[in-house]
C-alpha cells in the first residue's frame, strides 16, 4: 500500500471516526455516566439522519442540525419516560423505542426508505464553498465534523461538572445514594437520556449529509459499533478528568475506524464484516475483565480435576 492510498484510508477513517464519535460521546453520557445501555441508539441515529436529510432537502441545511438534535431529544425523552415513569426495564424501553422509530423514520422520509441529497445543499457543501482557496479546501467533512466534536466535548466537560451533571453521574454510579439524597433519579435519567440522544441525532444527521443520502438502515448496528469505540477509548484514556475521558472516546472512535479501514484496504476483511468485528470487540472487552476475575476459580477447578484421580485412590 503506497503513501497516498494510506492517506486516503486515514482520511476516511478520520471523517467516519469524527462523525461516529458523536454517537460514542452520547453513549459516554448514557452508558458510562448514567449506566443505562440505550438500545434506541440505532433508531435515534437513523432518526437524526432522516430529519436532517428532510430539512436539508427542503433547502435549510443549517436548520437541519438543530432539527436532528431536537428529534434526538424527543426520542430520548420517550425512552426515558418508559423506564422511569412506566416501569419498563431500561433495555426493553430502548428496544421498544428502536422498533417504533423504524416506522417513524420512514414516515419522516415521506414513506420512502431513502432520501437523496445529491442536488441539495448540505452543511458540508456550504463549508466547501467557505473553505475554497484556504489550505483546508477539500476537507469540509473533516472540518465540520471536527468542529461538532470539539463543541460536543467542551459541552460535555462543562455539563458533567455542573450540579446537574454530577447528579447524573451519581445516579449511574450509586443509585442507592441518590435514592436517599435530594436528587430525583427520574429527573436526572430523563435529562441524561435527552442530552445523549441529541448527540446521537446530530451524529446521524452529519453522517447522512456527508454521504449525501439518508436511508432507513443507516443506523443499523450503531450501538454496538459505538460501544466498541467507547470500550477502546476507555482502555486508552479511561482514567482522569471528564475531559480526558471524553477525548478518549473520540480517539477510540478514530482508532476503531482506522484499524477497520486498514483491514478492509488490505483485503483482510470484506466490508460486511464490520458488524461482526464490532460485536466481537464489545463482547471481548466486557467479558475479559469478568473472566480475569473468575480465573482463579477456573484454574483451581482444572487442577482439582487433575489430582482428583489420585485422591480417589487413597
Amino acid at each position, binding site marked *: 500500500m503506497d503513501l497516498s492510498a494510506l492517506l486516503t484510508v486515514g482520511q476516511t477513517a478520520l471523517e467516519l471516526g469524527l462523525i461516529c464519535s458523536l454517537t460514542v460521546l452520547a453513549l459516554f453520557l448514557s452508558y458510562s455516566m448514567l449506566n443505562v445501555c440505550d438500545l434506541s441508539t440505532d433508531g435515534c441515529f437513523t432518526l437524526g439522519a432522516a430529519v436532517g436529510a428532510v430539512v436539508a432537502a427542503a433547502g435549510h441545511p443549517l436548520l437541519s442540525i438543530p432539527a436532528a438534535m431536537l428529534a434526538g431529544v424527543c426520542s430520548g425523552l420517550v425512552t426515558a419516560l418508559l423506564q422511569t415513569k412506566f416501569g419498563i426495564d431500561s433495555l426493553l424501553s430502548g428496544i421498544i423505542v428502536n422498533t417504533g422509530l423504524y416506522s417513524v423514520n420512514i414516515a419522516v422520509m415521506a414513506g420512502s426508505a431513502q432520501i437523496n441529497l445529491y442536488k441539495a445543499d448540505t452543511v458540508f457543501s456550504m463549508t466547501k464553498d467557505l473553505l475554497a482557496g484556504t489550505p483546508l479546501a477539500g476537507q469540509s467533512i473533516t472540518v465540520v465534523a471536527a468542529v461538532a466534536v470539539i463543541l460536543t466535548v467542551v459541552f460535555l466537560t462543562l455539563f458533567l461538572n455542573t450540579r*446537574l451533571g454530577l447528579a447524573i453521574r451519581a445516579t449511574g454510579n450509586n443509585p442507592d445514594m441518590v435514592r*436517599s439524597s435530594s436528587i*430525583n433519579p427520574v429527573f436526572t435519567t430523563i435529562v441524561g437520556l435527552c442530552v445523549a440522544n441529541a448527540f446521537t441525532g446530530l451524529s446521524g444527521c452529519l453522517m447522512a449529509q456527508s454521504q449525501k443520502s439518508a436511508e432507513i438502515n443507516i443506523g443499523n448496528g450503531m450501538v454496538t459499533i459505538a460501544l466498541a469505540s467507547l470500550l477502546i477509548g476507555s482502555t486508552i484514556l479511561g482514567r482522569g478528568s471528564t475531559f480526558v475521558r471524553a477525548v478518549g472516546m473520540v480517539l477510540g472512535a478514530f482508532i476503531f475506524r482506522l484499524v477497520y479501514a486498514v483491514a478492509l484496504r488490505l483485503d483482510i476483511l470484506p466490508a460486511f464484516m464490520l458488524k461482526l468485528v464490532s460485536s466481537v470487540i464489545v463482547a471481548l472487552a466486557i467479558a475479559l475483565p469478568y473472566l480475569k476475575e473468575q480465573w482463579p476459580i477456573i484454574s483451581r477447578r482444572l487442577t482439582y480435576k487433575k489430582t482428583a484421580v489420585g485422591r480417589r485412590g487413597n
Partner: protein
Amino acid sequence: MLNITHISKTFNPGTVNEKKAITNLSLHLAPGDFVTIIGSNGAGKSTLFNAVAGSFLTDSGSIVLDGQDITFLPEFKRAKSIGRLFQDPMRGSAPGMTIEENLALAAGSGGWLSRVSQKDKKRFRDRLALLDMGLEDRMRQPVGLLSGGQRQALTLFMSTMVPPKLLLLDEHTAALDPGTAEKVLKLTRDIVAEHRITTMMVTHNMQQALELGNRTLMMADGNVVLDVSGQERAGMTVDDLLRRFKAGTGKDLDNDRILLSD
C-alpha cells in the same frame, strides 16, 4: 419537630407472606432530641426509618416534620430535610466520583447548572480537615479508594453539610471495626451537638443506647414498647432496660446481634 401519628405498614398484604411491620405507631420528637432505638429482630426499627424517610408510603396515619405534612412527599423531597446513614458504608457516597464531587453534590447550593467555585472547594477542604482523617489531602481521589470507616465519616459529613431537620442513623457504625466505629460515633456526637440536629439512632449496643442521646426507645412487633428519658433514664442500667422490656412485652429481648455491654 417530628410528629408520627398512628402509622401502620403491612408488607405483602393478603398473601401468605403478609407481615405487619408497623402497627399503629405514634411518636413525638421535640427539637434537639437525640433518641436511641433498640429492639428485637424484625421489630420494625428500619421500617420506621423507611417510613419517615419516604422509602415507601405508609398504609395509614400521618407524619409531620417541623410543621410540614410529609405523609405523601416523595423520598427525594424529604431528603432535603432528612439526612440518613445506613449500616453499609458504601451506600452513602458515589465511589466513581471524587471526594470533591461528592461534597459538591451534598452541598446542594446553587442552581442545577452551577459549578463548584474555588471558594467552595476551599471551604470543603477546611471543614473536611476537622474530621481528622487526612481526607482533605485526597479531594481529587475517587471515593471508592477510601476505607469503610472513612466513607461512613464522609457520608456523615455529607448528610450534615447542610444541617438537616432530622438525622436518621441506622446502625451506622455496626459494619466498622471497633476503633473506627468509636471515631465515627464521636464525630456523630460532635456534629449533632454542634448543630443541635434532632436525631434518631438505631443501635444494637445496649450500653451505647443508654449513654448516647437523651431518650431511649425499645421496639417490638412494630411498635414502641418502652420510652424512657430524663431522670428515669439517667440511673438506668442495661439490666433495668432488659427487665423493663420483658415486663412490657412478656418475652426476652431477642436480637442475635445485641451487645449487652462494650
